[in-house]
Each structure stands twice: as C-alpha cells, then as structure tokens.
C-alpha cells in the first residue's frame, strides 16, 4: 500500500522543542509561592514504627508542613495504573505515608519547605523510633516457616495464578523426552534519564488539585490519586508534560498523592522531585522471578505438554504483581502450541522495593527461560533451532491463546529468514564451541531468540482511547488526545495517522503535546505497546468521522454527490473532474460562517477491535573471552514484525533503544541488596551499569511489515518488543560459543569464568 505520510520517517512533532532545550518537563516548571517537598525514608528494610516526633522539624524556619501517616487519609490503594478490568487484580495495601516500614526507602514522613535544602534539613530533625524486624530479602526467606509477615498474607504469598489446559501429566507421559529446568532473573531498573518521581501539585480555591506529573497514565493516575486522597475523581486534574523516558516506571502512581497531600495541607503549590538515588530506592522496577519450566516433546519436535511454575518477587507492596502474574502466564502459554499446559504463578512479598512495570512486563523474563530451554531441546533432539521455532509458533489464522482471538497477520517466517541471512547464521554457528570461529582464548558463536508480544492489553484490560478532532477555519486540525508520549514518538505517529485519514498535510495536524485529564477523553495511557494500535484506532476513526462531515459540507459547496468526493493534500477533489476543487480551509470557513454556523468536529471514545500480536527473531553474535569471562556482543540483528510501520525511524529507534536495555539485562545490569540488612548496594549510575555509547555493538534492524486487519493502516506495535528476546539470544549465542548454559542473569564475567572453569574440571 502506498500512503501519503504513513510510512514516512517524518520529523517528530516535539523534536524542535526538545533539541533546543525549550521543552518544559515537570521538574523545569515553577509556580508562584511554590514550596519544595522531600520524603523521609525508612533506613530499615522491615520495622514497626513505634513513634514519630516531628516537632523539631516543624520548628525549623522555612518549613510549612511535616506530615506522617497520622495526616494521611486512612484509605488503602494500589499504585498500578489499571482500569477496572477482568485482568486487573488490585490488592490495595498502600497508604500515602506508611505506618510500617517495609523496605529501605519506604516513605515515613513528608516535608514541604521554602527550598530543597531546608526540606532536607527538616528531614534530619524528624525523630523516628523503630522496632526493627528481620529483613526478608528473597523469596525463600519470605516464604519460610515462621517468617515475619510483611502484610497479612500467609507465608507472605498473596497471589496464586493458575492456568490449566488439558492435562500435563498425560502430556508428559506421551512425550519422548521431558525437560525440566529452573531459571532466575534479577531486579533491573528502568533508569530513565529523567529520574522517576516528579510531580508539581497545585491546589485551588474550589477544593480541586491540579498535578503536573511525569506519568504514562494520566487518567488512571487521576483515579488512583483521587481515591488515595479521598476525593471525587473530578476533583483531581492531571497534566502530563514532556516526560524524560518511562519504560514502565511511571505506569501508575509514583509520588502524586504525596505531592497533592502536601499541597492541599499548605494551600500552595508543592514540587516533589525525586533524586536519582530515590528513583532507585523508591520507585517500581522489574520483577525478579524464579521459573521452573517443564516441557514434554516428541522426537519430531512437537510439544505434548508445557508447564511453568514461577515465584514472583513483588517486593514490599502488591502494586502490579497479582495482575502481572496473568501476563506472565499468558506470555508462556501463548508463544508455542501445546495441547496440555499448566501454569502456577505465585506472588510473594519481600522487603525489597515494590516491583511494577518494565518494558515487556514479564515477557523478557519468560522468554529468557523458554528460549534458553528451546535451544537445549533442539540440540538434544538434533533439530535445527530455527525450524524448531517455525514448527511450533502460532501462525496467522490460528487462535492466539493470549487473547482467544484469531491471529491477523504473522511475519515471523520472514523475520527468521532475513535475520538468519543477515547474521550469517549457517556460516557462523559454532555448535557448542566446536566451530572454527575461535582465536586462541576468544570463542565466537551466534544465537537467536524468538518472541511474540501484544498490541494493547485486550481482553485482559480495557483498551479505551479517545480522540477529538476539530477543523479550524484555516483548514488546520487540532487533535485532542491524552498524549502519553514519554519519548516513544506516539504523538508523531498519531498525527501521521490523522493526517493520512483526513487527507490534509501532516504539518497541519496539531496534536495536544501534553495530556490533560480536564480536556482529553478517557484514555488508558501508554503501556502494553498500545498507543499506535489503540490510540491510533480512535484517532483514525475520529478522522473518518470528520472527513465524512467535511465531504458532506463540500458536496453542498460543489453541488456534487458526496460519493464522488475525496480529500487529499488539504483539498477536496471530484473524482471525474479535477478542475472542480475546494480547499479544506474553504470548507471549514463555510461551515463556520456560511449558513450553518458550526465547526466540524469528530469525537470517538472506544476500544480497538482486537489485539494483533507482533513477532520477532533476534540474532546475536558474541565473542567470549575464555580467560576473563567477558562476553562481547559483536553484532545484533533484530528482525521485527511490527505490522505497518507508521514512522520507520521511530520504530527503529524503539528497537535500538530496547536492545541497549536487553544487553544490559543479559550482561551488566542487576540491582542488588545486602541480604542481611536489605540495604541496596548500587542505587547509583556508577555501580548500576547501563551501556554507554562505546559499549554498544553494531545493530541491524529489519522491519517486517505484516499488516494487521484491525490496526490503523495495518499497524500493530513495537514499543516493548525490542528487548524481549535479547537476553535469550545472547545466552544462546554464548552456549554456541563455549557450550555452557546460563540459567541466571546477568551473565557477569565472574559467573562466566567460574562456569568455564567448572566445565574444564
């Protein structure tokens, strides 16, 4: 299909303001009489709070408020940004300020003062008496007999998500081989460049509070914040300015309730900005999971049974975890066909910072485990790893078990073919270190990983999006949308969709760059890789509605039946007579100021029709230094079926950035705690290591555009996919290079060297 602006890598609508430094992020803003907030954080991983004396802090000049649990509404809430939906299991166990310390960093008190320095000094004057309890820093300790209870859940286990399809015991009995392996993946942090946790709350004289916040989910944050404050939803207004990256860390409430509580107590605006250290300490990151995967398979590679048992370390508060367990099951069972499937996912409290959403939402964890085992199975059975995936993945026309709906399109075969060719798969495979790609102590290998992911979260969660388009008198169009772009480019892609459907130039579409819950219709926000598919559907349908009204008006102006008219390049054309034309501006002017006296407006609020999955095959070439254990990534080839790429440069950028996170997940990133005290060991950018420009390998991105039926112009999604299969591909490449299977991430030099030495012995 050839389009006018869809499929073009047009410059982003917010690029100029960002590149010039004039974009105002939440933390850049200031309001008159604004105060600055700071949070006092628990120094203990697990402790009862016996008493808090705030008198000295109150007495410090420049301090306007010192709040504790006593001052918070006694309303429990859950920070996860979900709409009430079948898949949303919201265990409400958080107060705005806690009455029991459950992790180092838990918010005990909050201060508002004239500047950050005074607020910080006020924190030091708050006296808290704790009764320290044992710190339960891992699942084994948390579930042990007699372990302290972090909340009220028996054995600190508060969720069990079971799935049963068929009967796995029968399936295992029928198998020629049964494989059982256990994998562990650690906690990693999103590390958006704008530290997570920045809100500016301003109360007004009508009892409302407006909160500017760096968030992914304006309308859902409005709901939760209002609930936490004991206010009606309409009393809260959330405005989302440009956001400096999110990757799931802002998929729900972060610090909006604390900011709002302070602001409403003092009757003045309050800015609450977390430091980088606080972003590590007190905001939600990726779930560590222990996964046992048992697979029954026939000699020819057909699955007879697949089973996942996982223990999910959700940290100190429930937030996403009980709901998260559902997608964890979904990723596992939907990626390969099997007549018998069993899943048991357990959610466990520990005294670590609560976990929430991070790009991929359980899929990177599951795919690391599944795809590692797949290569082991292929090797044992003597099957080609690529053929093995091709044989067992669900294809177009088949039901995708994630959603229960038929798969609309599948470009996976092309992903495999083009990716394998680009990495030189056949030439470079070493087959467990027996290949010739070695120079002395350095061994090379190639590996791959496969994944599927969603376009939105239907049917587990509502996927409501809303768009309103109004045509101005000059033919430009305002597109009012709850724009939850945190850098992924949704504002631009949606503008392209609107321009394409309306038939007007791209530069004439003016999308709301911020999201404002008082202005834009209810929208779920930015998660589950949904904005292009779900948001795009609403935008396209709003545009269709507007185009219809435009053409009806033009039909009147041109005295021509509406069936013979179309809009292109900002003009209305008559199909058989190019000389008869009228501009969109003229039509709009006529609508406003002719006999009708109205503006052409179209508004849609709806869910998209489906959830067309995306596929990817990532191929990695590594070189393992067998004397130092260092794994060097030489090349990554990422072949992704994204449906129609609305803006190819944006799509590539999403994949490239995600790969940086995926390599970090595989090799260098791990957020660690002292297991006795619960003290975080690396809440900083020196010891929590994200890749720099000199660490990145060569990346080749291949876009396979298997257009969906229901996506706007055939689009599907890409936002999360880029890092889902990366760690598995690297682990499989390392196996190819040195014949060692790593079942734990990250594959640090220490672990790799130790494994190499064990192998030699």
């Amino acid at each position, binding site marked *: 299909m050839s389009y006018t602006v869809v499929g073009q890598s047009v410059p982003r609508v917010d690029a100029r303001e960002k590149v010039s430094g004039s974009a105002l992020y939440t933390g850049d803003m200031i309001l008159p009489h604004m105060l600055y907030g700071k949070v006092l954080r628990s120094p203990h991983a697990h402790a009862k709070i016996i008493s808090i004396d705030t008198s000295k802090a109150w007495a410090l000049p420049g301090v306007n408020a010192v709040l504790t649990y006593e001052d918070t509404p006694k309303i429990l809430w859950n920070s996860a940004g979900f709409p009430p939906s079948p898949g949303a299991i919201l265990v409400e166990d958080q107060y705005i300020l806690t009455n029991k310390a459950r992790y180092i960093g838990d918010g005990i008190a909050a201060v508002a003062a004239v500047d950050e320095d005074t607020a910080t000094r006020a924190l030091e004057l708050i006296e808290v008496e704790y009764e320290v309890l044992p710190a339960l820093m891992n699942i084994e300790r948390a579930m042990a007999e007699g372990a302290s209870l972090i909340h009220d859940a028996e054995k600190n286990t508060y969720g069990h998500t079971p799935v049963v399809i068929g009967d796995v015991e029968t399936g295992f009995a029928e198998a020629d081989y049964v494989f059982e392996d256990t994998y562990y993946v650690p906690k990693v942090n999103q590390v958006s460049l704008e530290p997570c946790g920045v809100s500016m709350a301003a109360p007004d004289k009508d009892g409302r509070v407006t909160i500017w916040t760096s968030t992914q989910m304006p309308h859902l944050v409005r709901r939760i914040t209002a609930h936490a404050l004991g206010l009606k939803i309409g009393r809260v207004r959330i405005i989302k300015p440009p956001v400096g990256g999110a990757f799931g860390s802002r998929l729900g409430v972060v610090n909006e309730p604390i900011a709002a509580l302070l602001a409403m107590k003092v009757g003045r605006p309050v800015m609450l900005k977390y430091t980088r250290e606080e972003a590590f300490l007190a905001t939600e990151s990726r779930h560590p999971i222990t996964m046992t995967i048992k697979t029954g398979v026939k000699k020819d590679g057909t699955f007879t049974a697949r089973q996942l048992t996982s223990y999910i370390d959700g940290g100190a508060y429930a937030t996403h975890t009980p709901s998260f367990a559902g997608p964890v099951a979904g990723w596992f069972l939907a990626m390969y066909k099997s007549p018998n499937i069993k899943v048991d996912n357990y959610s466990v409290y520990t005294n670590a910072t609560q976990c929430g959403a991070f790009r991929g939402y359980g899929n990177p964890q599951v795919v690391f485990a599944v795809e590692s085992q797949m290569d082991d199975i292929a090797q044992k059975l003597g099957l080609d790893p690529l053929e093995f995936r091709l044989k067992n993945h669900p294809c177009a026309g088949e039901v995708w078990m994630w959603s229960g709906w038929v798969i609309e399109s599948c470009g996976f075969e092309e992903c495999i073919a083009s990716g394998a060719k680009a990495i030189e798969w056949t030439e470079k495979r070493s087959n467990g270190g027996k290949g010739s790609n070695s120079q002395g102590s350095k061994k090379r290998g190639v590996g791959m990983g496969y994944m599927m992911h969603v376009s939105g979260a239907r049917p587990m969660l509502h996927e409501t999006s809303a768009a309103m388009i109004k045509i101005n008198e000059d033919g430009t169009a305002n597109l009012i949308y709850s724009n939850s772009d945190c850098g992924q480019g949704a504002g631009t892609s949606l503008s392209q969709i609107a321009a394409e459907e309306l038939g007007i130039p791209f530069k004439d579409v003016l999308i709301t760059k911020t999201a404002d819950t008082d202005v834009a219709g209810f929208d779920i926000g930015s998660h589950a890789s949904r904005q292009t598919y779900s948001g795009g559907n609403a935008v396209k349908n709003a545009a269709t509605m507007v185009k219809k009204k435009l053409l009806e008006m033009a039909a009147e102006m041109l005295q021509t039946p509406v069936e013979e008219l179309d809009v292109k390049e900002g003009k209305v054309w008559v199909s058989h007579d190019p000389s008869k034309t009228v501009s969109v501006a003229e039509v709009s002017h006529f609508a406003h100021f002719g006999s009708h006296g109205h503006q052409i407006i179209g508004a849609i609020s709806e869910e998209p029709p489906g959830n067309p999955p995306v596929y990817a095959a990532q191929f990695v070439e590594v070189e393992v230094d067998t004397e*130092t254990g260092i794994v060097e990534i030489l090349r990554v080839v990422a072949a992704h079926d994204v449906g129609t790429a609305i803006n190819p440069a944006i799509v590539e950028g999403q994949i490239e950035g995600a790969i940086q996170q995926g390599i970090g997940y595989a090799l260098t990133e791990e957020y660690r705690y002292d297991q006795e005290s619960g003290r975080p060991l690396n809440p900083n950018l*020196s010891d929590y*290591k994200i890749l720099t420009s000199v660490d990145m390998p060569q990346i080749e991105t291949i876009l396979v555009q298997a257009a969906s039926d229901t996506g706007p112009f055939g689009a599907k999604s890409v936002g999360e996919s880029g890092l889902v299969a990366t760690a598995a591909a690297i682990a499989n490449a390392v196996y190819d290079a040195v014949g060692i299977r790593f079942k734990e991430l990250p594959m640090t030099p*220490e672990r790799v060297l*130790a494994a190499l030495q064990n192998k030699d012995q």
Partner: protein
Amino acid sequence: MSDFNYWKPENLLDAVSLLANMEDQARPLAGGTDLLVKMKKGPINWKGIVNLKGLTELKGINYEGETITIGALTQISSLIENPLVSIHFPVLVDAARSLGTPQVRNLATIGGNLCNASPAADVALVLLMYEARLLIMGPSGSRKVPVQEFYVGPGQTVLQQGEILTTVEIDLPPLNSKGVFYKHGKRKSHEIALVNVAVLLTSQPETKQITRARIAVGSVASTQLRIKDAEDSLTDSLATLSAFEKAAKLAKEAVNPIDDVRSTASYRKQMVGILTRRALQEAWGGEL
C-alpha cells in the same frame, strides 16, 4: 549539601596555612569531581573548603632535562592532549583516557585524583609504574615522596593536615622501554576498574633479554601495589612465554583482594594473573 566556609587563596603559602587550621578541617578543592560528590552524599566532617584553582602556578606541564613535571592542578584532559606526554609517557595517556568520562576529564585534576587515593585509580597506577615522585608543600616546608610511599589505605595518603600536593615528577624511562596499561571492567566508559594492571619492560632487543620490569596492579589491595617478586623474576631474564607466565603467577599470588559490590576476590585474583601475563606479552610485542 551542608554549609561550609570557603576560601580561594591566591598563593600557595596562604593555601597551606588555611588548610593547616585544625578547627575547620578544611579540604582542598581542585576539579571537584570527587569532593562535590562526597559533599552532596554526606555526611561530612569538614567545615571548610579551600579552593586551589587560584594557584595558577600549580598548573602546567614542563620538561627539565630527563624529567617531566606536571602541576597538580593540571586537568586530566590536558595530560591527554599534551604531545610530549603522548610521546614520552604514552601509558599515562592510556590511563588518563580511561578515567571517568570526557566531561569528568575536563574538570578532574591529576593532583585531585591522586589525593582521592582510590585503590582503583588508573593514573595513580601508571605513576607507580613510572616510579613518579610527588612534591608536597606544607606548614613545615616541602618534601618529596615517591608514589610508592604515598598511599596508606583506601582514601588515605601520607598528607598531613595543611599539606598540598603541588607537582608530579616523572623521569623518562630507560631507552627501549615499553609499557602497557589495562583497565578491566564491565563497560568501557565511566567505569571503576575491577582490576587494573600497568607493566613497563626495558629490554635489549638484540639479545631478547629483559633488563628491567615494573609491574603494578590496582583494585586488589588497600593501595596500589608494585609486585617486586614478579619484577625480580624478569630482571635479566630472556623474554619467553613461560617467564611471563611465571611473573604473572607471582603477581597473582601476591595479592589478596576483597569481595565488594563491583566484583569478587576470587575473580580479581585470577584477573591479576591473566592481565599481567597479557600485558607483559603486549609490552614485549615481538615473538617469544
């Protein structure tokens, strides 16, 4: 950040007397890349800062005969850009280039880096390899301390309250010397070495004989170390792979590193062996 008293003296003697005042326990401020981080993190027990950047005499790189002198306030980036340093002390440039990030290198000074006394410091390790001398000015006058004797422990030097490191002196290495520096880490920028190694081999090319070896390792003890046993094993010996392996083994056995957030004792110990051997091979350059 806590409040502090602030002075910016215009001459060295004033700086010394300000720093010697025991009440404020003032710290010297050079590039600020370590001091400001410490002060923001807190808690600190000093109440004053003496900004040394007014002491322009402490900047600059000069040659006197066979000795280079580097003012303590010389930025790390200036070291890298200096052509004579590149020619005569290329290993120092390698170490300097590995420090922090480009932005940090434009601020950090050689004196500040040395006095920060991190056992993982890269520039300090190479200065140890080159057997540099440090000129110190204090209330009782000036003294010269070899780098070898400068460090007492992590974050601790022999500097007394009131003493300032003013100059780094390095003699040209003997003819036919070649050095190599390795910084071993998990990423290639903004990294603190898990282990670093600096070796300098002086040889007689015709006879394939090593006349002198200097082997320095860092991040594996409370200070950087010269491994004398390993150096001695190579003095007046033929350059062979087994000689290098033996020296590397001696280096490995000489160190007792610790486990910390960055790595493990066992891994570090092994890396000393591997990297020393590789560095010796690379420094030798030719066939063995």
